[in-house]
């Protein structure tokens, strides 16, 4: 699948690899994610990407069942979400989904809340990736 510059960054494999490398070296993530097993699927109209953790480590085989969070949005919203200093209501998953009708968080719920600290940190690190 070819990726255009207008697609969200998470559709770019090179970006994903740089993100995982950066995350692996993050001090806060290293100690807070040790018990985190969750899969996050980010989607846009042109595609989706999965970020799966097992006990805080990257895995290729995502979890199933209730350890799943799906967040979908148009490309232009993702561009703001992943910008270095996101504009209002694009800096947090819950605000992102609550305040924009074109953003869907489903499923989320208790799984999202359960892993919120770690997920928040993942996106903070993602915003540091070129």
């Amino acid at each position, binding site marked *: 699948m070819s990726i255009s510059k207008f697609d969200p960054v998470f559709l770019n494999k090179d970006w994903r690899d740089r993100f995982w490398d950066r995350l692996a070296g993050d001090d806060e993530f290293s100690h807070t994610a040790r018990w985190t097993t969750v899969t996050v699927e980010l989607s846009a109209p042109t595609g989706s990407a999965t970020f799966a953790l097992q006990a805080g480590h990257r895995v290729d085989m995502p979890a199933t069942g209730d350890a799943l969070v799906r967040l979908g949005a148009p490309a232009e919203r993702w561009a703001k979400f992943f910008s270095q*200093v*996101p504009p*209002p*209501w694009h*800096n*947090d*998953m*819950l*605000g992102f989904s*609550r*305040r924009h009708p074109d953003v869907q968080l489903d499923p989320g719920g*208790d799984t999202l*809340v*359960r892993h*919120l*600290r770690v997920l*928040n940190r993942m996106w903070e690190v993602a915003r540091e990736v070129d």
Partner: protein
Amino acid sequence: MKSIEPEPITARYYRIPIGGGEQIEQARIFVEEAGSGIPLLCLHTAGADSRQFRHLMADPDVTSQYRVIAFDLPWHGRSTPPGEWWKSEYRLTTDRYVDTIRAVIDALDLHRPILLGCSMGGSIVLEMARTDAHRLGGVVGLSGAGKLTGRFNDWSLLPDINAQQAVASWTYGLMAPQGPEIDRREVWWIYSQGGPGIYRGDTWFYSEDFDLRGHETEIDTEVCPVHLLTGSYDYACSPEDSKGTASAIPGAHFQQMVGIGHFPMSENYELFRTYLLPVLASIGRRNHPTPQALMAAADGQ
């Protein structure tokens, strides 16, 4: 070795009766303060405590004119829960919140204090302006509005959710990313120390119980000035929410705080004070007009 100068904040515990009749409760309330002058009574956010106002209390431009007072509500911070608290679910109601603020004002014998509240504190100041206008010098509501929804949830009591981290992380996202990280992390830290079910119980007031709609015109801003300030990043109480409430209250003022979130006095005090100080000055001019202002008013200017 030379002794270290402490911060200009002192603290006491007060035993205060709250409410009346069969509903009266004896509460042990933690109160801290700094400065002297016009009393500025600060009301912390849901699930938090008076530590949120420590930057305000260390601001000499404020404390040189105001006696800044902040207290921990019962069940919060260093104010203990009342009675046999373990036997009941905590839910803050509008009536109980009003009773508590009145009790603190009475106990400290405050004359026409200005109320400065944030989040649930930013909403209850509206009720206080409606019911106790003649006892107050004015109200400043941060991140508050006449009716809000969406913050009351049960998940923080679920046994398989670490509420200590989840509540703190849920509120963390309400802040603007521009604020100093060390201060935003302190907000997170304070939230991580809240008692079980306390944030949830407070949001019962903020998100369910309190509803000013239809009663806005009962607030007399000639007696009690009303100022609402809300941050552009706040998604729990949006600037539009607060602006709508202010528009419905004759004579109330609203201002959006750009680049700041739900906890302005804690997450980015340096930016917040640029909004707060003019508001306090405005209330001060209103309550204590200069001779020139009085003459101008008499001349119909």
